[in-house]
C-alpha cells in the first residue's frame, strides 16, 4: 500500500457573496498516493480553483477534512499554513510568476529564504541541483526576460522542486505555452513523476490530461469522474509533433 500524500474527506467550501451563499465545493472525497500523476479537470465554475487553493493550503475548507502528508489542515493557523506551503508543496503557475530582474538561480532560491533551517551554502547547492533537474544548469545567471516561455516555466518548476515538496501542484502550467513547449513541459513532469514525484495537474485541456495517469473531473462542486487513464508519453507526442 502506497503512502497517502493527499486525503480529502467530504470537503465543502462555501463563500458568502453579499447575502447569498455560494457552494463552490459540495462534498468531495479522494486520495492521492505517493508517486501518482493526477490531473484535475473541470470547466470554469466547476470548483477546481477552489479545490486547488485548499490543496495548496492557501485556503481552509468550510467543512470536511484535508490531510497533506498526514497533517490535518483545517484547524491550522495562517502561519502554520505558510510553513506547510513552504515545506510540503511546490506550486507551478500558469504565468510562471518569476521575480523580474532576478536571476534564475535567485528565483529558485526564493522558497528556501523563508526556511531558516537551511544555510546559505545549502540553499545555493539545492537551487543549482533543481535547476539541473529541469535542464537549465547553463542558464542560472539569466534573467526571466532573457529566457523563453518554456524556459521560464522550467525555472518555475525548479523553484517548486527546490524545497523537496511532497507534491507538485500545477495550475494550468501549460496554459501560456504553445503546443510543442506544452509537450516539453509535460514530458518534464512525466520525468519527475517517474523519479517518484507526486504531481497534481489542474487543467481544462483533455489532451494535456492524457499525459497523466489518473483524471479527476469536477462539475458544479462535485466529482463526476475519478478514473485511472493510460498515460501517453509526452516524449512520443513531441516526436510525432515534429513530423
Amino acid at each position, binding site marked *: 500500500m502506497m503512502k497517502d500524500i493527499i486525503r480529502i474527506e467530504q470537503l465543502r467550501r462555501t463563500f458568502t457573496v453579499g447575502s447569498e451563499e455560494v457552494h463552490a465545493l459540495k462534498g468531495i472525497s479522494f486520495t492521492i498516493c505517493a508517486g501518482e500523476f493526477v490531473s484535475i479537470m473541470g470547466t470554469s465554475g466547476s470548483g477546481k480553483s477552489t479545490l486547488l487553493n485548499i490543496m495548496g493550503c492557501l485556503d481552509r475548507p468550510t467543512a470536511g477534512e484535508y490531510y497533506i502528508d498526514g497533517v490535518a489542515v483545517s484547524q491550522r493557523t495562517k502561519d502554520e499554513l505558510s510553513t506547510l*506551503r513552504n515545506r510540503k508543496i511546490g506550486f507551478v503557475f500558469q504565468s510562471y510568476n518569476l521575480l523580474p530582474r532576478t536571476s534564475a538561480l535567485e528565483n529558485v532560491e526564493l522558497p528556501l529564504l*523563508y526556511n531558516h533551517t537551511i544555510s546559505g551554502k545549502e540553499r545555493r547547492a539545492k537551487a543549482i541541483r533543481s535547476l539541473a533537474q529541469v535542464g537549465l544548469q547553463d542558464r542560472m545567471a539569466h534573467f526571466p526576460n532573457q529566457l523563453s516561455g518554456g524556459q521560464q516555466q522550467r525555472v518555475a518548476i525548479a523553484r517548486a522542486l527546490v524545497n523537496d515538496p511532497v507534491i507538485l501542484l500545477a495550475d494550468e502550467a501549460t496554459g501560456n505555452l504553445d503546443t510543442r513547449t506544452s509537450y516539453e513541459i509535460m514530458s518534464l513532469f512525466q520525468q519527475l513523476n517517474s523519479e517518484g514525484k507526486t504531481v497534481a495537474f489542474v487543467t481544462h485541456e483533455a489532451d494535456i490530461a492524457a499525459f497523466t495517469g489518473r483524471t479527476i473531473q469536477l462539475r458544479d462542486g462535485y466529482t463526476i469522474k475519478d478514473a485511472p487513464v493510460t498515460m501517453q508519453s509526452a516524449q512520443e507526442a513531441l516526436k510525432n509533433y515534429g513530423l
Partner: protein
Amino acid sequence: MNILNLFKIASRALLRNKTRAFLTMLGIIIGISSVIAMVSLGQSSSLSISNQISSMGTNLIMVMRGSQRQGGVNFGSSNLQTLTVKDVNAIRSQAKYVSAVSPLVNAGGQLVNGANNWPGSIQGGNSELISIRKYKIESGTNFTEQDVRNSAKVCIIGKTVAKNLFPDGENPLGKSIRFDKIPFKIIGVLESKGQNQMGQDLDDVLIVPYTTVQKRILAITHVHMIMASAQSEEMAGQATREIEAILHASHKIKSGQEDDFSVRTQQEMLEMMSSVTGFMTVLLAAIASISLIVGGIGIMNIMYVTVTERIKEIGLRMSIGAKNKDILLQFLCESIILSLIGGAIGILLGLLLSYGASQGLKWPFIVSIPAVGISFLVCAATGIFFGWYPAKKAASLDPINALRYE
C-alpha cells in the same frame, strides 16, 4: 525568519530597481545633509565668533558713562563727564580682583605724514592700556608713567595706520607724524590683530598717553571710558561688582538711585553672541528638518506605490511559504535600508558641504557628533515610521487574490 535571510530578501528586492531606490533615497539624503550642514555650520560660526571675542580678552571690563537726569531731563550719555581719573585711581587702589585699569579718552582727526594722510582715531590711556586691550608691541616701546605725567607727544601705532602713513614700507619708529597740528613721535608699532567680530579693523589704532589727549587736544578733565582687566576670566564677575561698589561710593549713588555709569564685560558680549548664534543654529536645523520629513514622506509614497505594483510578487512569496510577518518585515526592512543608506550618504554629504563652507569662510570645521548620531536615529525612525503603513498593507493581502491579481 532569520535576519540574514530577511536582509537578503529586502536588499535583492531593492537592487531590482536601483534607479528608483536611489531616487527614493534622494529625499533623505538632502534632508539629512542639510540638517548636518546647518548644525555644523551654525556651531562653527558661533565658535569662530567666540574665538574672536576671547582674543580680545574675556577678562576685559568696560565702564561707560551712564545717562544722567537733571530735573527729569535725560541727558543721554555722550556729553556726560561723570567718569574721571579719580575713579580710575579709586579702582586701582581698592579693587582686589582687578589687575590693570586705564582711563580711555578718544579723539578723532586727520593723521599726516608729509604727503600721506589717514583719518585716525586717537585713543588716550595709561601705560596699562596696551595690555588691557590685548595688544602686543612688535617693535619699539610702550610709553611710561613719566610720559603720562608730562603729557608727552609720543604715540604707538597699529599696522593699518603705519601702512597708510608710510606706504613705502620705511620703518615708522622714531618718525614724527602730525595729528591736527600737534606732532607725535612714534615710539612703538603694534602687532597685527586683524578684525573683530563686527568687522572693525583693530589695527587702525593710535595710542597715546591720555593726558596728552585731555590737555593738548580736547582740553577736558574727565575721561570717556574706563577699561580694566580682571585677574582672570572667572573673576570678571566679582571684579565687575567690585568696580560698581567703588563707583557707587565715589559717585555717592545711594541704593535705588539710577547709576550714572554702566559696567560691561566681554564675557557678557560672548554670552549674548553665543545665544544669538545658538538660536540661529536651532532655527536653521528646524528648517532643514522639514526637508527630512519631506524625504520620509517620499519614502512612504514610493513604498506605497511599490506595494500595489508588487501585489503579484507578494502573492507568490506567500504561496511559497512567506508568512504575513515575513512580508511585513521585508517591506519594513526595505524602507529602513533605504533611509539608513540615504542617511549615511546624507551625513557624508553634509559634512563635506560644511567642510567646504567652513574652509571658504575661514571658520573652524566642527563635526557635531550629537547631530550625526541623532540624524542616524532619525533615519532609522523615518524608515520604520514611513515604512510601516505600506508594509502593513502588503502583509494584509490575501494570497489567493494577490496571486490572481492582474
